[in-house]
C-alpha cells in the first residue's frame, strides 16, 4: 500500500530527531534535565504525542488494509494525490524544523533561561511539540477525508489488524456471535470478551506500585516524608546560596553596609522603591500608610546601617514587612541609600514627622528596646517572612 509506506516514512522522519535528541541529552547531563519540571512535562508531552501519532498511523494501516478502501482507490485516483500531498507536507515540516533548530543553535550564546532550561532546549522541545501537533492535525484531517470519501463505496466489514486484536484480546467482530450473551436489555446485548491484557496487567501493576509506595514511606521508613523533604530542601538551598555569596558583590549586611553615592545605584534604588515601597511611603517618600522618609526624623534610627536593618528585617508589629526574602542585600543597600538621599527634598503632602531627630554622623541608635527587638527579629527569622 503506497499510502501506508509514505505515512511510515513520515513517522520515521519525526521520530528520528526525537530519539537522537534524547540520546544526546542523556549523555550530556541527563539527571539535571530530568529534575527540571518544565523539561519533564515537555518531554512527556512529546512522548505522548508521538504515541498518539503512531496509534493514528496504526489506524491508517487498518483502514488501508480494509477491502473497501482498496476498492475505493481503484475507483478514485484523486485521493492518491491527496496522500502524496500529506507526506510532502510532512517532509516540508521536517525540513523547516531542522532549519529552525539550526537557527536556535546559532542563538545559543544568548544567556536567557526559560523555566530553568536553556533557551535552545526550550525552543527545541516547543518546536517538537508544535510539529507533532501539526502532524496530528494533518493526520486527523486526512483520516476524516479518507472516511468521508469512502462513504460512496459499498461497505465491506473490515478486519482488524492482529496487533489490535492481541492488544484488546478480543474476539474478532465477525466471530462475535460465539460470545454474545443471551442478555437483552431494551435491545442492548452484551459480549463476553476477555479483559484486555494490557488493562489487566496495568491494573495489577498499579496495585503493586501502591503496595511498594506504602511500604517505602510508612513501613520501612526509607522514604522522606514531607517535613524531612522540606528540611533537606532548605539545607541544600542554603549551601547553594552561601557558595554563591562567597564570590559576590552582594555580600553586604547591616554591619558592613556603606552609603552608596553612585548615580546608577541611586537610580536602581529609586526604581525598586517605586515598585515596592511607594504604595505605603508615597512615591516621593512623603509617607501615607507608612511614615515620611524625606524628613529628618526616624522611628528606628537614621544611619545607613539602621535604614538597611529596617528594610531587611522590617518592623512587623508596626506593619513594615521584612524584605530580605524579596530583595538581595545589594538591592537593600541601594534602596536605603536612595531613601537617605531623599532628606530635605520636601515632597508635597508630607506626613507629620514621627520619631527622633537624627543628625548625620551620630552613632547607630542605642535605644534600650534594641536588644529586645533584635531578639524578636531572630524569632522572625526562623519563621521566615512574607512577600505579597
Amino acid at each position, binding site marked *: 500500500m503506497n499510502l501506508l509506506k509514505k505515512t511510515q516514512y513520515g513517522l520515521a522522519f519525526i521520530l528520528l530527531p526525537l530519539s537522537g535528541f534524547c540520546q544526546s541529552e542523556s549523555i550530556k547531563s541527563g539527571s539535571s534535565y530530568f529534575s527540571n519540571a518544565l523539561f519533564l512535562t515537555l518531554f512527556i508531552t512529546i512522548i505522548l504525542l508521538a504515541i498518539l501519532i503512531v496509534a493514528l498511523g496504526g489506524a491508517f494501516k487498518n483502514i488501508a488494509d480494509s477491502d473497501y478502501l482498496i476498492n475505493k482507490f481503484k475507483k478514485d485516483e484523486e485521493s492518491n494525490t491527496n496522500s502524496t500531498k500529506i507526506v510532502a507536507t510532512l517532509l516540508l515540516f521536517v525540513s523547516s524544523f531542522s532549519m529552525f533548530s539550526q537557527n536556535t543553535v546559532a542563538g545559543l550564546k544568548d544567556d536567557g533561561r526559560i523555566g530553568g532550561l536553556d533557551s535552545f532546549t526550550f525552543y527545541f522541545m516547543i518546536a517538537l511539540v508544535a510539529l507533532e501537533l501539526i502532524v496530528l492535525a494533518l493526520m486527523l484531517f486526512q483520516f476524516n477525508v479518507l472516511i468521508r470519501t469512502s462513504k460512496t463505496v459499498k461497505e465491506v466489514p473490515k478486519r482488524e489488524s492482529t496487533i489490535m486484536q492481541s492488544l484488546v484480546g478480543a474476539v474478532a467482530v465477525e466471530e462475535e456471535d460465539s460470545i454474545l450473551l443471551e442478555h437483552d436489555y431494551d435491545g442492548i446485548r452484551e459480549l463476553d470478551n476477555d479483559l484486555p491484557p494490557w488493562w489487566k496487567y496495568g491494573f495489577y501493576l498499579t496495585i503493586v506500585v501502591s503496595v511498594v509506595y506504602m511500604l517505602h514511606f510508612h513501613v520501612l521508613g526509607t522514604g522522606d516524608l514531607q517535613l524531612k523533604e522540606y528540611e533537606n530542601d532548605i539545607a541544600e538551598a542554603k549551601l547553594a546560596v552561601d557558595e554563591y555569596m562567597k564570590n559576590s558583590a552582594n555580600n553586604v549586611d547591616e554591619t558592613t553596609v556603606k552609603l552608596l553615592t553612585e548615580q546608577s545605584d541611586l537610580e536602581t534604588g529609586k526604581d525598586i522603591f517605586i515598585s515596592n515601597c511607594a504604595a505605603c511611603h508615597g512615591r516621593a517618600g512623603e509617607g501615607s500608610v507608612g511614615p515620611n522618609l524625606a524628613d529628618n526624623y526616624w522611628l528606628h534610627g537614621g544611619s545607613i546601617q539602621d535604614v538597611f536593618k529596617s528594610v531587611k528585617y522590617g518592623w512587623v508589629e508596626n*506593619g513594615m514587612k521584612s524584605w*530580605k526574602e524579596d530583595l538581595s542585600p545589594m538591592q537593600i543597600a541601594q534602596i536605603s541609600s536612595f531613601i537617605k538621599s531623599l532628606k530635605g527634598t520636601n515632597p508635597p503632602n508630607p506626613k507629620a514627622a514621627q520619631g527622633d531627630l537624627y543628625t548625620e554622623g551620630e552613632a547607630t541608635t542605642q535605644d534600650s528596646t534594641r536588644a529586645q527587638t533584635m531578639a524578636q527579629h531572630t524569632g522572625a527569622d526562623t519563621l521566615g517572612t512574607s512577600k505579597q
Partner: protein
Amino acid sequence: MELEKFQYDNKTVKMFAYATIVWGLVGMLAGLIAAIQLYLPSLNLSLPYTTFGRVRPVHTNAVIFAFVGNGIFMGVYYSLQRLLKARMFSDLLSKIHFWGWQLIIVLAAITLVLGKTTGKEYAELEWPIDILITLVWVVFGWNMFGTIIRRRERHLYVAIWFYIATFVTVAMLHIVNSVEIPVSFWKSYSWYAGVQDALIQWWYGHNAVAFFLTTPYLGLMYYFLPKMAQRPVYSYRLSIIHFWALIFLYIWAGPHHLLYTSVPDWAQSLGVVFSVMLIAPSWGGMINGLLTLRGAWDKVRDNVGLKFLVVAVTAYGMATFEGPMLSLKSVSAIAHYTDWIVAHVHVGALGWNGFMTFGILYWLIPKLFQTKLYSQKMANAHFWIGTLGILLYAVPMYWAGFMQSSMWKDFTPEGQLKWQFMDTVTKMIPFYIARSVGGTLYLAGAVLMTYNLIKTIKAGSFLEVEEDEAPALKGDYVAHSKDHWHRWIERKPIQLMVLSLIVVAIGGIIEFVPTFLVKSNIPTIASVKPYTPLELQGRDIYVREGCYTCHSQMIRPFRSETARYGEYSKAGEFVYDHPFQWGSKRTGPDLAREGGKYPDSWHYNHMLDPTSMSPGSIMPQYPWLLEDQIDGNSTMAKIKAMKRLGVPYPDGYEKIALSDMEKQANEITANLKKDGIETLPDREIVALIAYLQRLGKDIKSEKVTDKK
C-alpha cells in the same frame, strides 16, 4: 407467557430535559461572567451579589447540580423504565422529585448570591437547603427502587448498578459532610474543624466528582452508547470488574486534594496510591465504551449524537489519566493552587459531562417528539465549536498554571524569591482572556443547540403515550448452572444496594476515624486560642464574600512558600476553624499568616480599592464592607454554637462577648484614626480587619507541643 401492557412516562423525561438545557445555559453564563471578572473585576458592577466570590459558587453549583443533575435524572428516567420494562413507580413521586429539585436550584441561586454559604466548596448550601436536598434525594431513590421492584426484567443491567451506587453514595456523602450546627435560619457552622473538616470536605468533594459527575454518567453511557451505535456492549466481564473496583477505590482518593498540607502523611499517601490504582478501573469504562464501537465507526460519521459521545468518553479517559498523575506528590507540588487544576476539571466537565449531555439530547429529543433533528448541519457546527471551545479553554489554563507555579518557585542565586506575587498575577491576564474566549465558544455552541432543539420540538409532536409490553416476572426463577456468578446479585437489587454501600463506606471510615481518635494526628499547640467575638464576625464575613475562592490559608512546607508567606501551616493551628478555609486556588496570595503583615489602614484602603495598595491587583473592590454594619445581635448565638462544638470559651462568655467585641472594635477604630481614617466601630470592615490581623499569629515564636 402472558404479556402485560404498560406505558412509559415520557413527560417527566421531557421536563428534566428542558431543565437540563435551561440550567446548562444559566450555569455556563455564570461561569463566563466569573471568567471575565478575573481580568475585569469591575464587571461586578460594584454590587456584592455579582462579585466573583459569590458568582463562582453559583457557577459551580449550577453546572454540577442543576445542569448535570437534571441531565442525570433525564437519562435515568428514560433508560430505567426501558431497561426494566416498567413505568416509573409513582407519577406523584416523579412530580415531587422534579419540582423539588428545581426549587432547590432556585433557592441555591438566591442564597448564594446573597452570601448565605457554609464556605465548603461544592457544599456551599445552608442547612435548610441541605435538608431539602436530602428529602428530594430520598424521593428519587424511593421512586427508583419502587420501579426496580415492579420490574418485568429479571436482571439489572450494568447502567442500573451505576444508578444504585450513585444513589447510596451521594446520600452518604451529602449527609456526612453537611453535619452542621445552625446559628440562625441561614447560618450554620460545620460540625468538624480544621484538618478533620478538610478531610471530610475533600472526601465529599472528590466523590461528588466520582458519584455525581462520573458514575451516573457511566450508567448513561452504558445505555445510550450501545443504543445509538446498535452494537453489543464490548465486555460484560469488564463491566463487572470495573464497576466494583471503581466504586471501592474512588472513595479513598479524597486526600489527594490535600497533598503537602497539614493532613497526616499516612492519609496523604492513601490518597496517592488509591488515585494511582484508579487508572485502570476508570479506563475500564472508557474501553468498554470505545470498543463497543468496534465495527461501527462508520456510524460515528453519520450520527452526531454518537460523535459527541465519542469525544465525551475520550475526554473522560484523558481526565481520569491526568487525575492520578496530578495525585502524585511531586506533580501536585506544581499544580495545586494553580489554573492547571481548573483546566483539569474543565476537561472533565466540558468534555465528559457536557458533551455526553449534548449527545444524549440530540438523540433523545427527536425520539420524544417523533421527528428528525431540525438541522444536522447545525449540530455538526455545535460539535466543532464546542470542541474548539474546550481546547481554547484548556490549553491556556494548562499553560498559565504551569507558568504561575514556576514563577512562585523561582529563586535568584542570592536566595531571594525572584517574583513578587503580583508579577505572577499580571502574567496570567492574557491566559484568562483566552480562556474566556474558549468559554464563550462553548456557550455559543450550547445556544446553537438550544435553537436547534426548539426548532425540532416545534416541528414534532410529543409522544406522550408510549406503549410497550412484556411478560410479568414469576417468583419461581431457577438460575442456570452455567451462568456467571455475578448474575445472582443482578437479580437482587436490595442486596446490590447494601453491598455497594458497604464497599463505598470502607475507605471513608478508615481515613476519618483515626483523625478523630488518635491524638498524634493533630498535635495540639498551646498558644492557639479561640477567635475573639469580633474576629469570629470577621471570619463569617470572609466566608460570606467567598474569599476562599481565590485565597488559600494553607502554607505548604516548601522553601518557596515559607520564604513568601512564613512558617508552614501546622495541623494544630486549625482546631477552632469551623469550617476550615484552606481554599484550593491561589488567584491571590495565601493568607494563612496575613496577621500583622500590614497596618490596619492598609487593609482598610485595600478593601476600598485593592489597586491603591497593590497596583495591578485583580481583586474586586468591597466598598459595602465600609458601609454595612456588623450584625452584633448574632454574636451571642455564634459564641454559644461554637461552645457547643467544643471551642473552649469560658463559662458564660456569650453574655460578655458583645462588650468584648465593642472593645476590640474601638481599638481598631482608634488605630485607623492614627493613620487619618475615620470609621465607626460597628462597620463590617472593622471585624474583617480584626480577623485578617489575627490570621496565623498564634504560633509566632511558639513551639508545637507534641511534635511528631
